[in-house]
């Protein structure tokens, strides 16, 4: 066991932090008021590419290729800790990377824009009446000749209203879950906007499919099974401009069905939580040392030290558990599902607690939009819902730990 960062990891954190402080921080206040437009998000994605965040690699959710998972976690902590709005929007736009698996026609139509980083993707999972319970989904794709005809509504979809394409999870004629890629230009769909507590810069909305026609060949499940049975997967990958071992890596991510990807997303929220908690704690420490009341810095008061030591304890113990999870995911150890849900549930809640205390240390200034504390708090509070609420993730972890489900 070893708890030290390598010199390179320390350098990555330093560089990323310096980049964010210089290039991003000064713009947050202006841009975190409204959801990004399509072009704004494309621009921000390009801006963050140099630090290795938001690369249009499909494995982006599982971290950059060839980069060790702790380094990825460090980058995730820093970017999310700096500005959740931009990090969430870019991260979730990564669904567009699925285009690389699309048909020749799709790749011909969208490949260039994808490579240029201009394609904004989104993932349609949640429905008004199907949140934690994905079996209750009613959005359906019915095959009609060589097209699917899709009907239904998806909600709480990040980037919905600025999306170029959708990775849709829905049911087929046989009531089986299936995944379909939808190119908005070819298969238009309507969208709506949702307004919310946090993640202000990240567009979140609804997708409305009203007899939306999508070519049969866009069924992602079919694409993958054909790829696997073709016998020349590695060549095919190279043809698509993907690394030869792509499918092996996909295997880890999807090892547990179409929702396997969630383990990455959930661990990502753990990283985000630790990143936000770190920033908030750092801010509280600085403020407490500077703010003088009753003749001494408030840092010298026991009730302030009570909050700050608790914030440090929570942040540092969560950080280590997130790292352990990140490595478990990378190695696909048997406990990765349990750990990723444990981290999603408890680190997200812990982050609400830490950001709330950090705000409190700042007094009225903690409420002010001139300082980032109120944003940290709103963004942290938001994290306890997506990618499985705290409650459903406790039940996912509980099932892994106890061998019995308590969902119903």
């Amino acid at each position: 066991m070893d708890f030290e960062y390598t010199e390179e990891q320390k350098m990555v954190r330093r560089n990323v932090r310096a980049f964010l402080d210089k290039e991003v921080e000064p713009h947050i206040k202006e841009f975190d008021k409204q959801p990004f437009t399509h072009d704004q998000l494309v621009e921000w994605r390009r801006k963050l590419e140099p630090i290795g965040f938001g690369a249009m690699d499909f494995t982006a959710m599982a971290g950059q290729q060839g980069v060790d998972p702790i380094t990825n976690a460090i980058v995730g902590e820093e970017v999310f800790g700096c500005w959740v709005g931009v990090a969430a929007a870019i991260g979730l736009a990564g669904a567009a990377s699925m285009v690389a698996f699309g048909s020749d026609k799709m790749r011909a139509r969208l490949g260039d824009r994808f490579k240029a980083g201009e394609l904004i993707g989104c993932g349609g999972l949640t429905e008004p009446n199907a949140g934690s319970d994905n079996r209750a989904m009613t959005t359906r794709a019915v095959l009609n000749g060589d097209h699917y005809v899709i009907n239904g509504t998806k909600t709480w979809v990040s980037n919905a209203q600025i999306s170029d394409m959708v990775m849709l999870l829905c049911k087929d004629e046989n009531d089986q879950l299936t995944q379909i890629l939808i190119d908005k230009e070819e298969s238009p769909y309507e969208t709506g906007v949702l307004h919310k507590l946090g993640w202000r810069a990240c567009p979140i909305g609804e997708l409305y499919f009203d007899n939306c026609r999508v070519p049969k060949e866009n069924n992602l499940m079919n694409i993958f099974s054909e790829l696997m049975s073709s016998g020349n997967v590695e060549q095919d990958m190279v043809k698509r401009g993907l690394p030869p071992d792509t499918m092996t890596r996909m295997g880890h991510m999807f090892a547990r069905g179409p929702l396997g990807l969630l383990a990455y997303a959930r661990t990502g929220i753990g990283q985000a939580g630790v990143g936000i908690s770190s920033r908030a704690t750092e801010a509280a420490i600085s403020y407490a040392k500077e703010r003088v009341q009753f003749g001494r810095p408030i840092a010298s008061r026991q009730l302030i030290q009570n909050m700050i030591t608790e914030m440090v304890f929570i942040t540092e113990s969560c950080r280590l558990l997130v790292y352990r999870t990140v490595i478990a995911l990378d190695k696909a150890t048997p406990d990765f599902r349990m750990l990723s849900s444990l981290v999603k549930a408890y680190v997200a809640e812990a982050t609400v607690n830490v950001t709330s205390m950090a705000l409190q240390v700042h007094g009225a200034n903690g409420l002010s939009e001139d300082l980032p504390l109120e944003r940290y708090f709103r963004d942290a509070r938001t994290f306890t819902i997506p990618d499985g609420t705290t409650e459903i993730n406790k039940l996912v972890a509980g099932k892994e730990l106890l061998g019995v489900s308590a969902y119903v």
Partner: protein
Amino acid sequence: MDFEYTEEQKMVRRSVREFLDKEVEPAIKEGDKRAFTHDELVDWRKKLIPIGFGSQDFTSMAGHEDSDPITSAIIYEEVFGCWGGLAAAIYLAGAASLVAFGSDNLRARLGDHLRSGGLIGCGALTEPGAGSDNRAMTTKAVLNGDHYIINGTKTWVSNAPIADVVMLLCKDDNDQFTQILVDREESPFETSELHKLGWRACPIGEVYFDNCRVPKENNVFLMFSEMMASGQVEQELEKRGLPKDTLTRMGEMFARGPLGALSYARTTIGHFGVGISSRATDAAISYAKERVQFGQKDLSSRGGRRPTWRSQTPGDKRASLAWTN
């Protein structure tokens, strides 16, 4: 001991809740996007005075708009629970009620406004360097002839941007706390707005005093001590249209020094908490009863139907903590 509401108290809650559901609730979504203007707040106050909230009686600061404190608590719970931003703005505007104790000049100029509910007050206490530690205040009022010259900055003042009158807590020449009523028209000062996490509709901001000249007679301590010393307290009160027991009631509020009124404000935050928690719990109960996940109800029958919790007002009576008490 007795933990039951009287029939009258229950009726007050019911009618206040109905009023709020009908007259206030529909306006919140738009109204809470930005801070009130002066006239918007005056309109809202006039609308709420009939249900017992926001009267310009100075004792409104003590949450005693009704003679029975539990009835007052009920009204406060309901209004704060309905719309925190609105309730806070109106409640804190009540600082203007001190004008009734002011000089003939002040009353002549502002009295009508005050009585009609058109006067917005604010209480300026916090300074950038003086929060919990009020002894660190640096805003100072220096007597110069028959005027104070005031210099300093107050921050996190509710209603500052739209206030007509400031009840200012500051220090005098001798570094003693003093309280001065500042009439914005007569003694102009600048203000700015602060943007913040909650209470979106309630304007909060800073007040800048830059050699601001205020008549000496606006010193609140003086007003009261002169009235006391005059030997004609009752006549004075009558002249000002105030009830005879006013000073006794004031005495209770200020019994613990110029910051004594804070005990009332702090208790009001308690009403706020209870009111908003009650509304939030009602909403959670409704939603939890309606929301189906992992079966338990026939989903097929629900397709396309808009869940009731989307359209319902938060005060849905079907599951109300307040009613069950």
